[in-house]
């Protein structure tokens, strides 16, 4: 019987051998490691810590917004909190989270490689991230920064008297961390694939990560140079962005968004990477329309560079450039739509498991769809004039970044947890937290669409009384969401010690990462794999299962 076979696969385990975790102990074996898996763990710990730091600021803001008056925090504190929330979440969580933690761990194994192409550079990248984060923490403990994460000039260069320089320096350094990760991924994908692993046999995770890396390589340096100019201007006051002596503050916005809009895709493409893997694994099916999904990642990477000025529709760009950027913004929605349709279609006639990662996937599809379609509202010029810089925008990008990326991050952590740690997480607790996250998220952010269209501007410390009801709902949702995020912290740590031991392949999934032991050995495979099958080849896999059963 098939189920019997699968049961064997899932829980029969070769005698435990030396793996990357028990090969060496001690602090320096971690801090000086060049093993991509250990670096992945370092990232996992760092970014999760930063997620809770950013989450703390978010929660304090939600508490402040319970009442229309600015009564809990002073306006300066509130401004610093939303700025720090944005900076911590974007630069120190969303951008590095999935590539740094899951990508580092899984990508080389998926390619059948022993490590990333440049292990020392990979470690350097984590150190750069950490140095950047130390700047962030320094800013937090010495008074904060109040420019908003966008550092708009001339406010950031001439008017703010907070720690702008240290913050931008931190962001600059962290930028190079992601550049080095991207470089490593690109080279590894090109040069380190196992024999037989052609491009169209690659898991979609790799395609998406590759597209992400291309964006990182081409966009992040522009942010770096922009931040250099910002720091020069703030220090010397020479007029690069100072209109009174000839500079152009809108030029800053162009340069900033030339990076920061593609950065949105740096945050969401890795999430799509995880979702593709989980959809296949928990439906036991090849992802529907594999080539379309693969190419749509590259299409997103390409189009993401042509839409930046849709952040400037009311900043005074010409009517015609507004139209061009609006048109391009509509086009970039197409590849995302393709992905959504294909993931949904994958479930047709599938074998759908209701395990936690799949619950997150279903949540992702629901929330990302809302986030995506509200992006159409913002791309439509006539509506954007009204909703630009309101809670509508806030809600839109949280549906993408939290409803999309954070859900996928959680899906990925649960999916690969047995591979990373060799232990199973407690399924029912995990299902409960997935439910709490989904409900809490919608309760937090759906009211913000309404309050934004009604007229509540973003970054407001105090607001008009008629917006209160929706804000109270939102804060209530944030509380549920906080519980939903704290639960996994607890049960995942618990599972490290008490979780059921996982076999090599607890999900019965295909993919090279499930063909090695859990946790993987130091060089990932006992022998270099030779790939003779297509990606997500479930029929062949299960047939092989049956045959071994007969033998």
């Amino acid at each position, binding site marked *: 019987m098939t189920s019997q076979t699968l049961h064997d*696969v899932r829980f029969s385990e*070769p005698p435990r051998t030396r793996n990357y975790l028990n090969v060496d102990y001690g602090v320096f074996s971690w801090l000086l490691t060049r093993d991509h898996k250990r670096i992945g763990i370092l990232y996992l710990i760092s970014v999760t810590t930063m997620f809770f730091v950013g989450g703390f600021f978010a929660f304090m803001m939600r508490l402040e917004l319970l009442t229309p008056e600015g009564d809990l925090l002073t306006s300066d504190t509130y401004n610093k909190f939303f700025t720090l929330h944005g900076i911590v979440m974007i630069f120190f969580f969303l951008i590095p989270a999935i590539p740094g933690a899951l990508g580092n761990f899984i990508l080389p194994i998926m390619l059948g*490689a022993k*490590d*990333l*192409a*440049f*292990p020392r550079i990979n470690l350097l990248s984590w150190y750069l991230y950490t140095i950047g984060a130390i700047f962030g923490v320094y800013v937090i403990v010495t008074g904060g920064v109040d420019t908003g994460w966008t550092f708009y000039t001339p406010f950031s260069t001439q008017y703010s008297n907070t720690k702008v320089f240290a913050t931008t320096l931190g962001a600059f350094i962290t930028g190079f961390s992601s*550049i080095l990760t991207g*470089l490593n991924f*690109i*080279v*590894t994908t*090109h*040069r*380190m694939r196992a*024999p037989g692993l052609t491009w169209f046999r690659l898991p979609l995770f790799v395609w998406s990560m590759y597209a992400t890396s291309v964006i990182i*390589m*081409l*966009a*992040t*340096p*522009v942010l*770096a*140079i*922009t931040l*250099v*100019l910002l720091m*020069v201007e703030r*220090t*010397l*006051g*020479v*007029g*690069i962005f100072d209109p009174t*002596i*000839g*500079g*152009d503050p809108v*030029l800053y916005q162009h*340069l900033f968004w*030339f990076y920061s809009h593609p950065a949105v895709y740096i945050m969401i493409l890795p999430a799509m990477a995880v979702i593709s893997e989980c959809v296949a694994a928990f439906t036991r099916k090849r992802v529907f329309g594999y080539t379309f999904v693969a190419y749509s990642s590259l299409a997103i990477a390409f189009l993401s560079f042509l839409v930046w000025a849709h952040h400037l529709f009311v900043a005074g760009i010409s009517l015609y450039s507004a139209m061009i950027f609006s048109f391009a913004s509509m086009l970039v929605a197409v590849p995302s739509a393709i992905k959504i349709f294909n993931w949904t279609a994958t479930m047709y006639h599938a074998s759908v498991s209701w395990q936690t990662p799949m619950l997150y996937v279903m949540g992702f599809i629901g929330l990302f769809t809302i986030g995506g379609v509200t992006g159409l509202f913002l791309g439509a010029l006539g509506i954007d004039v009204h909703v630009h810089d309101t809670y509508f925008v806030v809600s839109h990008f949280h549906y993408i970044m939290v409803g999309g990326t954070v859900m996928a991050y959680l899906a990925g952590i649960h999916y690969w947890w047995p591979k990373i740690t060799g232990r199973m997480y407690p399924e029912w607790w995990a299902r409960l937290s997935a439910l709490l996250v989904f409900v809490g998220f919608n309760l937090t952010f759906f009211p913000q669409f309404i309050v934004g269209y009604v007229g509540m501007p973003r970054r407001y410390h105090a607001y008009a009384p008629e917006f209160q009801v929706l804000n109270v709902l939102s804060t209530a949702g944030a509380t549920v969401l906080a519980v939903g995020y704290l639960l996994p912290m607890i049960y995942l740590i618990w599972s490290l010690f008490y979780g059921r031991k996982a*076999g*090599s392949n607890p999900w019965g999934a*295909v993919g*090279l990462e*499930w*063909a090695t032991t859990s946790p993987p050995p130091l*060089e990932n*495979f*006992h*022998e*270099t*794999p*030779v790939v*003779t099958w297509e990606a997500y080849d479930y029929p062949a*896999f299960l047939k*092989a*299962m049956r045959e*071994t059963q007969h033998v």
Partner: protein
Amino acid sequence: MSDITVDSREETPHAHHHHPFLQHHFEDLGQQHEASTLGMWVFVAQEILFFGGIFAAYAIYRTMYPEAWSAGAHHQNWFIGAVNTAVLIGSSLTMALAVWAAQTSRRMLTVWMLLATLILGSIFVGVKGYEYYDHIHHGLLPGQSFTYVHAENPALTPGIQLFMVFYFSMTGLHALHMIVGAGLLLWFMYRAWRGDFGPEYYAPVEIMGLYWHFVDIVWIFLFPLLYLSH
């Protein structure tokens, strides 16, 4: 389990001797070489965008303030710039020769060519330093110490300061790349002297060359933009 999904690779006897510089995670030196070269190309692509950002800002302000830009370029000594360009192109030649020497196992020639590259690069940076000194002396350093006033048309002064901001930022970033390159050259001179490189393993010198040529090309763009755009 692994028998089912993973065909273990045929026991190909590892024909190549285990080269001391083959890193553990590569199959062979060829793969390692290709990976390093591609890595440097991707890094150069990133560098192009890095400089591209500031070139774009330069271009926009140049269109906004053409007179100030022209006046600013007049303050550059094109002759010194041209000599420096020649020096840098010369260093690219010696760098290319160093790669060839490394590849053909000419140990001491590699060291000498790297040294020549280093010396030419240092001359370039030294001359650049002299130019900086000269500009600062004339009060052209943007910020507090910018005391220069354009004689015929004082209204051009802020624009000229902006030009000098770009001048110092662009040449400064370029010089920073030169200095990093010089450090790497020193390290590779030591390695070449030690006899690390040969026909099988010369990728480090080759990618050093790629980097050096890239830095050279950036200057080829900077020179006309900053010195000759009257």
